[in-house]
């Protein structure tokens, strides 16, 4: 007892691949809007696969944003908790190294680093095949509700978030932030 709990807010997916970028765009928006304490890490995990297991070792609670292909109406959010999470993650296997997030969780388990609290905010994609395409309208619209869901889950875990009064350093830069990436190029 008395140990501080460390929480990881993680977005995964490939921003170059239309709705597959949901997780990263959600965590980017979350970071832009909210300021969090030192005990919370907000991470753009991209398509890192197994390489992410070490972040799980360093945190004991995990909130994941990811695209999930579960045959729902595009843009539908699905909130999954605990042991149900491994069944849902990864609309696509997230890494070229074939490791879906299920494998990351299993690997964490093998290293005795399985999160004590685990929640997934999943979003049903419309299009995963449009290479270089933006988020589709339904998924873009779902971003807002996904942030609210995240705030609620963190509150359950006793973590309060504070809206930023002024802009912090963005999570993604160099023209791949949401606004710049999606702008039309002449």
């Amino acid at each position, binding site marked *: 007892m008395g140990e501080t709990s460390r929480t990881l807010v993680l977005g995964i997916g490939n921003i*170059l691949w239309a709705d597959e970028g949901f997780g990263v765009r959600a965590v980017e928006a979350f970071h832009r809007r909210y300021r969090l304490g030192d005990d919370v890490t907000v991470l*753009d995990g991209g398509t890192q696969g197994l390489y992410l297991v070490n972040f799980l*070792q360093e945190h004991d609670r995990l909130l994941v944003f990811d695209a999930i292909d579960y045959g729902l109406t595009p843009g539908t959010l699905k909130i999954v908790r605990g042991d149900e999470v491994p069944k849902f993650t990864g609309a696509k*296997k997230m890494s070229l190294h074939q*490791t879906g997030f299920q494998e990351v969780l299993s690997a964490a388990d093998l290293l005795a680093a399985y999160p004590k609290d685990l929640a997934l905010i999943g979003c049903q994609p419309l299009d995963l095949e449009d290479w*270089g395409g933006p988020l589709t309208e339904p998924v873009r619209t779902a971003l807002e509700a996904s942030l609210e869901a995240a705030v609620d889950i963190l509150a359950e875990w006793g973590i309060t978030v504070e809206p930023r009064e002024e802009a912090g350093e963005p999570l993604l830069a160099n023209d791949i932030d949401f606004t710049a990436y999606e702008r039309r190029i002449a």
Partner: protein
Amino acid sequence: MGIQTPNGFNLDNSGKRIVVDPVTRIEGHMRVEVNVDDQNVIRNAVSTGTMWRGIEVILRGRDPRDAWAFTERICGVCTGTHALTSVRAVENALDIKIPENANSIRNIMQLALQVHDHLVHFYHLHALDWVDVVSALSADPKATSQLAQSISSWPLSSPGYFKDLQTRLKKFVESGQLGPFKNGYWGHAAYKLPPEANLMAVAHYLEALDFQKEIVKIHTIYGGKNPHPNWLVGGVPCAINVDGVGAVGAINMERLNLVSSIIDRCIEFTEQVYLPDVMAIGSFYKDWLYGGGLSGKSVMAYGDIPERANDYSPSSLKLPHGVILNGNLKEVMPVDLKDPNQIQEFVTHSWYKYPDETKGLHPWDGVTEPHYELGPKTKGTKTNIEALDEEGKYSWIKSPRWKGNAVEVGPLARYIIGYAQNKAEFKDPTDKLLKDLGLPISALFSTLGRTAARALECQWAADQMRHFQDKLMATIKNGDSSTANTEKWKPESWPRQVKGVGFTEAPRGALGHWVKIENGKIDNYQAVVPTTWNGSPRDPKGGIGAFEAALMDTPLADPNQPLEIIRTLHSFDPCLACSTHVMSEDGQEMTKVTVR
């Protein structure tokens, strides 16, 4: 009925067809079809895959100084390598020179990625093709300890350590959650290790999983963050101030020392765990020398890790550069990435359209126009292919060729070229490894050789990190702490129209980016990645690529459980492939396996 390919293989597709089809839709869906003879020996191989494509569409009109950030997202493992290749391409186009310190830091980052990737590939993506996890459960911990201590001085080797591990593993397996170990061909006849060697390897699987967090700290320090470290056209984005304090801001002495200690640990882990494991595993597979394919014939490397900043000539590059054709180790020919007649991509058997498909296109002039059509002998439908027709178009991967020749790229290619060039740092460790295993030089041209070359290269890379870290420290001590050249940062200082090429040796092989810049914006951008070279379909002359070649003439113990196919494909560390299942000729699913 056999077809002789121009690159020396005899293809016969009259026997039973086995389809190994990974279903998972990652950034590449890889599928392999082979024909086996009545002895279950592979006599024809057809490799197909979807490849990421369209980076040129995403990048057209963007600022070339940001291209690295996009290319870093192409792949989840080669992130830094793509970024480095991209900044090199832009610097080449704009004739930007980087400071010595930037060269050292980039080399350390690239080498750290090599070490990281090779370790993770071996233990987490490939070892289980050689190591039977379930067999490890019946190992004797005491005997495992004796085995471990007989091959290495690595301290984690007591009987108690292996006993605890075995208990953990048992619990894990019994919980029904095999996790990363699920869908293996456990108990397959092609597994040759005794239970103790299996248990030792599983222990190191877990240690490597834990150790990787140390390696990536190098990227966090020099790249500002990880994953997705920062890069900069003109140098590196980190400033150096040795007198600074704290963990933020410029690189200070404390953090330089941290990098140094991580490098020591990388060297230690490679020498005391990775290499001894490869030797121990190799000693049980000395009779399984299949999978050589193109490696004994034609290989290519661009070279990488420049000793001197801005000097990308072979004399400055520490990783070998050149091409060997038709097994002639006496002649290593230079590669010119700018020569329109050397590197060309063909689409005769790829799902793209060219105005004239008998000719290839140099990447600067590359076009990517999808054109999905199947050959007349295809079985099945466009959306549910049962068997491909390799005489028609059959892959989303293009066929890059060097002067018309298919070549293998990757660690084995680099070691063969270094060996042929008589470079002691590549030849001596190779000779020693072969001698210790009691194998002739020809054994190098095999799946095992590919796996061994990667381990040797990991050791080489760890040692080179030490070299460049020392060099960086020396330069800083001499009063030079510059890390970036911003003279040509502003687009107003650029010519109206320029083009450039950047190259690296990614962990899995030669990587090139070609960029055309017009009025300060990207006009065309093409990347030819290692898996395109290795995984390419046939070319107009019928030459087969490295994956297809490597599968030829391999006997399968059980065609329904093609562990041998998976093992050889994994030895390339391919940037696609995923969960596979095996289909019989009538399209019935027979077996499913998670390819790691």
